[in-house]
């Protein structure tokens, strides 16, 4: 059987206009989004009707929020793409929210497609900057190294019947240690520690609490936003904010694949009581600060285990679980990569050069340190740290390594190229993307769980899409192929 889990990534990209440090980042982000989306067509609005980021998974709605939808974000550039993604401005960053996919390998494809879209968009925006042409740099990272953080969030649809507390208990030790396998790496730290010139995770130092609703301050290990963008009776969406944005496709596959497997085991009641970490937030920081990945974490029962051992706990259960329930190739790949990386981390983390982002970047930095006799706070190293994440394929350092075959890839570039314009075929993103491509002038607005059509009648017509798995190619391709405009499509859907 296939282990289907609807999922996706949303990435806030770093943005800078070269040589113009005072350039307003909100304006720059808008220019980037608009440059990509501008083609003379009418633009569909984003439909906010079902959005409520203040609904809490613990069962209440936050009364006075720290995070209202910022006034300045309303009316900003906002595009819905034919691949089913949302491309817009959020918190002074261009954000690419991937379409819903059904498995972690597809998540890699559309996550990478997001990088390609940002690359094209930034290049176009540079040509039309107010005040004359210039260059817009876009980085897929999570911190500027000066105290600011911005997010890459993972989203997983989870069975509503699972008590949220069970997810929290099982996933917290997993998240505390997952970074050894999938951290993006960074120079420096947020704690003023002189002995931490480099660490595993971009995000870890910005995490302050174990569980919480907020995303821009007091960031939690487990985020409680309860906004499923789907039938709330059947689904919840686990909104994960603790992770790094990865350049490495292996890391993205493993990050989403291992987390999805953990959620499946929680849903099926397969896991024993978790190895509870004594002080998860400080443990998260400490794991990130240890390049040997061998410093033990204190458990509540007094035992000390390494981050890799904690990951073995989850992997061994996942291997057993998959013998019982799943045999699809993607899941097998995830298990194989998970095991291979844990073995390598125990033998020598540095052997993961070209596989895991934090190692690949660290090795590069070390070579500079050794060749040029640089101190770890040298600006050239900080530049390498940033430019590793530059989305340009000819200038971004990860991309240079990829072009010369020095990093391991998971998907073919032809798949990524296709995903820039085409939606996944087995989720509702297919319906969204194809409707945008074929009936764009009749789409008044669209959101994750609906499309609103304007076919010239007195009222707009809303098509709800409350199940992420419905609206795929099998269900709607023939219908869309047959309908030359939205009116017969709607008639057929209502008929």
């Amino acid at each position: 059987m296939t282990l289907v889990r609807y999922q996706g990534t949303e990435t806030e990209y770093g943005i800078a206009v070269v040589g113009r440090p005072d350039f307003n980042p909100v304006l720059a982000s808008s220019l980037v989004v608009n440059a990509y989306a501008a083609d003379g067509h009418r633009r569909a609005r984003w439909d906010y009707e079902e959005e409520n980021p203040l609904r809490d998974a613990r069962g209440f709605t936050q009364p006075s929020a720290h995070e209202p939808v910022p006034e300045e974000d309303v009316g900003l550039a906002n595009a819905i793409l034919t691949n089913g993604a949302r491309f817009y401005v959020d918190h002074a960053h261009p954000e690419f929210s991937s379409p819903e996919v059904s498995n972690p390998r597809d998540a890699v494809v559309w996550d990478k497609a997001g990088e390609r879209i940002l690359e094209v968009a930034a290049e176009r925006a540079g040509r039309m900057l107010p005040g004359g042409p210039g260059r817009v740099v876009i980085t897929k990272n999570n911190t500027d190294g000066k105290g600011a953080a911005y997010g890459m969030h993972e989203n997983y649809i989870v069975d509503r019947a699972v008590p949220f507390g069970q997810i929290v208990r099982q996933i917290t030790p997993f998240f505390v240690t997952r970074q050894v396998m999938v951290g993006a790496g960074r120079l420096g730290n947020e704690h003023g520690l002189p002995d931490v010139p480099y660490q595993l995770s971009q995000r870890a130092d910005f995490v302050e609490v174990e569980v919480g609703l907020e995303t821009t301050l007091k960031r939690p290990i487990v985020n409680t936003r309860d906004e499923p963008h789907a039938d709330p009776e059947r689904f919840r969406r686990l909104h994960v904010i603790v992770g790094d944005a990865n350049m490495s496709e292996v890391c993205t596959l493993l990050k989403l694949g291992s987390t999805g497997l953990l959620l499946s085991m929680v849903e099926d009641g397969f896991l024993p009581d978790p190895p509870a970490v004594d002080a998860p937030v400080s443990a998260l920081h400490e794991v990130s600060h240890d390049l040997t990945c061998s410093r033990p974490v204190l458990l509540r029962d007094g035992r000390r285990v390494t981050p890799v051992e904690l990951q073995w706990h989850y992997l061994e259960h996942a291997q057993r679980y998959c013998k019982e329930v799943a045999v699809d190739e993607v899941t097998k790949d995830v298990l194989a990569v998970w095991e291979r990386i844990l073995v390598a981390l125990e033998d020598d983390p540095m052997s993961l050069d070209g596989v895991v982002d934090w190692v690949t970047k660290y090795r590069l930095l070390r070579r500079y340190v050794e060749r040029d006799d640089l101190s770890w706070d040298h600006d050239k190293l900080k530049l390498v740290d940033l430019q590793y994440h530059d989305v340009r394929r000819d200038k971004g350092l990860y991309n240079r390594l990829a072009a010369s075959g020095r990093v391991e890839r998971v998907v073919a570039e032809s798949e990524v190229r296709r995903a820039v314009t085409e939606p996944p075929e087995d989720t509702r993103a297919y319906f969204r993307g194809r409707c945008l491509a074929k009936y764009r002038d009749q789409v008044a607005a669209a959101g994750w769980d609906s499309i609103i059509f304007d076919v010239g009648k007195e009222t707009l017509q809303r098509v709800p899409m409350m199940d992420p798995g419905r609206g795929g190619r099998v269900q709607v391709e023939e219908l869309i192929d047959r309908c030359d405009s939205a009116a017969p499509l709607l008639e057929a859907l209502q008929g």
Partner: protein
Amino acid sequence: MSEGERVRRQRPRQTEEEPGETSAADQVDTSDVDDLLDEIDEVLEENAEEFVKNYVQKGGQ
């Protein structure tokens, strides 16, 4: 953890050497390293100090 189960690594270490900063493998560079750094030097932003100074982001989510 279920009763009797322990958190453990599945595989024995293949070497007693501590990984990371001091491991031998870490000191060994492959033969194309100089080529790699030369290639990267060609694409690095020209003024590292200025680029790094100007790279300031607003906080996000």
